[in-house]
C-alpha cells in the first residue's frame, strides 16, 4: 500500500471523476473525499521527502528507461501541495453554485488529477499527455457557461495552447532523437555528451520547449489568450487558472531548464538572460495593461501576467536566492490570486456587474470579504506584513547580489503601477454606494447569499495563509529550500 502511494495520489481524483458522472447526489462529497484522500496520501510521505529522500515508483513494475516512472522529490512535492490544497478549496467554493452539474465536477477532478500527473511523472512524453489532458479539461471548463464570450475565450486558448503543446512535443522529439530515451533523469545524464557533440539540436529543443511553455504561462509576446480566458471563465475556474494552471507551466519550465538541461548548460547558452528580459517585459506589460482595465476580473488577469513576470525574473537570475524567491513567489501568488478571484466572484455576484465602478460601497455589505480582498491586494503590491513582500524582497536581493540592479528598478516600478491599480479598486470598494445600485442579475435569478459558509471560508483560510506566510516567511522558505537545493545539485561535472 505504502509503495503505491505516488500513483494513488493521481488515481484517487481520476477515479472519483468517473464516479461523479454516475451519481447526482454525492458529486460534491465524492470530489472532496477524493481530494482529501490525495492530501492524506501526500502528507504521509511528505516528511520522508523533505528529509531528502526521493520516492520513485515504477508503473507496472517496468524499471528504468523502459517504463514510466513517477518521481516524487522536493520540487514535485511543493507543486503538488499547491495543486491539491487550492484544488480542495476551489471545489468547496463551487458548492453554492447549484447549476454546476456533474460534468463540472468531472472536468475539475480530471484537470486536478492530470496536473498532479504532470508534476509527478518522470517521462517527458507522459508529461505531454497529461498536459494535453489538463488543457482539454481547462478549455471545457472555461466554456462551461456556454455564453458567447466564454466560447470565444476558450477557442482562443485552444488555438494558442494547441500550438504551444505542439512546440513542446516537437522539442521532446529533438530530445529523443539526441538521447534515445524519454526519462527525464536519463536524458539529463546523456545531455552533457549531446551538448558537446550536437549543440544546435540541444538549442533547438530548448527553444521549442521554452516557447511552448511560454505560451502556457503567458510570457509577454505570447500572452494573448490569458486575459480573455482568465476573466471570462466562472470565478472558481478563474482562480484555478490563475492560481494553479499557469504554475504547472512554470513547473515544466523549471524541470526542463534545471533538471534536463541542467543549470550549467542553461547558463552556457545564456538563456537566463533571455528569461530575464522576457520576464521584465511581461512584468511591465502586465502592469501597464492592468492599469487601464475597467473590468475587475480582467484587471486581475493582467495582474497575473504582471506577477508571472516576477517569477520569470527570479528563474532567470538562477542563483540560489533567486530560485528560492521565484518558487516562494509561485506559492504566494497562488494563494493571493485565488483569494482575489474568490472575492471577485462574490463581488460580481452581489453587485451584478463586472465593472469596477459598480462595486462602490461593497465595504458596507460585506466587510469581511472586503478585508480579505484588501489583504490579498496589498500582498500583490508587496506591502511588508503580507507574503508578497517577502518573495519580492528575496528576488530583489538576488538581483542585487547577481549584479542586475536594473531589474530591481523594474520590479519597483511595476510594484508602484500595481499599487496604482489595486488602490483604485480598493478606493471604489470603500466609497459610498451609488444611488441607483443595479439590481443583481444572476443566471436564473439565483441569489448567492451573503456570508455563505462555503464561499466565505475558503477566502478566510487563504487570507490567513497570506498573513501567516507574510509574518513568518521562514515557513514557506523551509518548504522551498530543499527543492532549490535539488535543482542546483544537478550541475554537470
Amino acid at each position, binding site marked *: 500500500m505504502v509503495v503505491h502511494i505516488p500513483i494513488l495520489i493521481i488515481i484517487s481524483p481520476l477515479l472519483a471523476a468517473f464516479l461523479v458522472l454516475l451519481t447526482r447526489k454525492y458529486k460534491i462529497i465524492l470530489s472532496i473525499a477524493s481530494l482529501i484522500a490525495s492530501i492524506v496520501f501526500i502528507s504521509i510521505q511528505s516528511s520522508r521527502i523533505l528529509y531528502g529522500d526521493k520516492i520513485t515508483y515504477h508503473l507496472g513494475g517496468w524499471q528504468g528507461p523502459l517504463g514510466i516512472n513517477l518521481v516524487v522529490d522536493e520540487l514535485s512535492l511543493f507543486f503538488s501541495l499547491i495543486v491539491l490544497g487550492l484544488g480542495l478549496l476551489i471545489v468547496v467554493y463551487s458548492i453554492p453554485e447549484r447549476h454546476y452539474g456533474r460534468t463540472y465536477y468531472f472536468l475539475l477532478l480530471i484537470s486536478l488529477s492530470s496536473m498532479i500527473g504532470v508534476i509527478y511523472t518522470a517521462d517527458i*512524453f507522459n508529461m*505531454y*499527455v497529461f498536459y*494535453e489532458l489538463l488543457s*482539454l479539461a481547462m*478549455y*471545457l471548463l472555461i*466554456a462551461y457557461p*456556454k455564453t*458567447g*464570450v466564454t*466560447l*470565444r475565450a*476558450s*477557442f482562443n486558448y*485552444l*488555438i494558442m495552447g*494547441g*500550438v504551444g503543446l*505542439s512546440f513542446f*512535443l*516537437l522539442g521532446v*522529439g529533438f530530445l*529523443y*532523437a539526441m538521447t534515445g530515451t*524519454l526519462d527525464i533523469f536519463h536524458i539529463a545524464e546523456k545531455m552533457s555528451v549531446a551538448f558537446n557533440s550536437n549543440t544546435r539540436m540541444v538549442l533547438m529543443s530548448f527553444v521549442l520547449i521554452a516557447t511552448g511553455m511560454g505560451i502556457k504561462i503567458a510570457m509577454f509576446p505570447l500572452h494573448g489568450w490569458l486575459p480573455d480566458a482568465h476573466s471570462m471563465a466562472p470565478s472558481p475556474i478563474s482562480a484555478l487558472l490563475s492560481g494553479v494552471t499557469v504554475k504547472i507551466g512554470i513547473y515544466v519550465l523549471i524541470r526542463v531548464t534545471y533538471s534536463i538541461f541542467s543549470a550549467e548548460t542553461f547558463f552556457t547558452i545564456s538563456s537566463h538572460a533571455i528569461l530575464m528580459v522576457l520576464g521584465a517585459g511581461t512584468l511591465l506589460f502586465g502592469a501597464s495593461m492592468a492599469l487601464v482595465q475597467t473590468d475587475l476580473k480582467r484587471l486581475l488577469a493582467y495582474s497575473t501576467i504582471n506577477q508571472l513576470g516576477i517569477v520569470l525574473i527570479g528563474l532567470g537570475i538562477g542563483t540560489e536566492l533567486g530560485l528560492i524567491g521565484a518558487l516562494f513567489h509561485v506559492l504566494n501568488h497562488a494563494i493571493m490570486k485565488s483569494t482575489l478571484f474568490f472575492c471577485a466572484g462574490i463581488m460580481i455576484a452581489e453587485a451584478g456587474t463586472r465593472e469596477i465602478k459598480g462595486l462602490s460601497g461593497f465595504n458596507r455589505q460585506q466587510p469581511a470579504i472586503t478585508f480579505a480582498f484588501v489583504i490579498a491586494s496589498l500582498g500583490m503590491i508587496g506591502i511588508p506584513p503580507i507574503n508578497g513582500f517577502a518573495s519580492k524582497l528575496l528576488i530583489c536581493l538576488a538581483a542585487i547580489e547577481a549584479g542586475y540592479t536594473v531589474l530591481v528598478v523594474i520590479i519597483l516600478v511595476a510594484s508602484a503601477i500595481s499599487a496604482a491599480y489595486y488602490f483604485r479598486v480598493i478606493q471604489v470598494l470603500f466609497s459610498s454606494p451609488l444611488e441607483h445600485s443595479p439590481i443583481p442579475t444572476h443566471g436564473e435569478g439565483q441569489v448567492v447569499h451573503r456570508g455563505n459558509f462555503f464561499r466565505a471560508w475558503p477566502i478566510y483560510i487563504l487570507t490567513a495563509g497570506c498573513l501567516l506566510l507574510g509574518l513568518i516567511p521562514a515557513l514557506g522558505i523551509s518548504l522551498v529550500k530543499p527543492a532549490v537545493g535539488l535543482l542546483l545539485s544537478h550541475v554537470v561535472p
Partner: protein
Amino acid sequence: MNPVNISLLVCMIGLYGVMSKNNLIKKIMGLTIMNGSIVLFFISIGYRKGGLAPILEKGTTGGNPTTIFVDPLPQALMLTAIVIGISVTALALALIVKIYSKYKTLDIQQLSKER
C-alpha cells in the same frame, strides 16, 4: 531533403495557417497540419534504412546482431499523439459549432468586434 526537414517545413506551414487565417475552421486545419507534421517528424526519427518491423518472432533475430529494426517507440508515441490530436480537433469543432450558432459568423475579425 530528408524527412525531418520536410516535417519541420510542414509544421511551419501549419503554423502559418494558424496565425494568418481569419476563418476558424482554417485555423483548426492549420493545427491539424502541425499535428500531422509532428507525427511525420517522430516516425522519421525512428526510421532506419532497410529496417524490419520490430516484431520479435522465432527466427527473425536468429542470434544475428546485424539485423536492423525500426525504432518502435516513436510509433507507439505517435499513436497516442494522434488520439490526442483528434480529441483536440473534435473539441475545437464543437466549440466552432456553438460559436457559429451564437454569432452566425466564423470570421475572427468580425467575432472580435462582437461583444
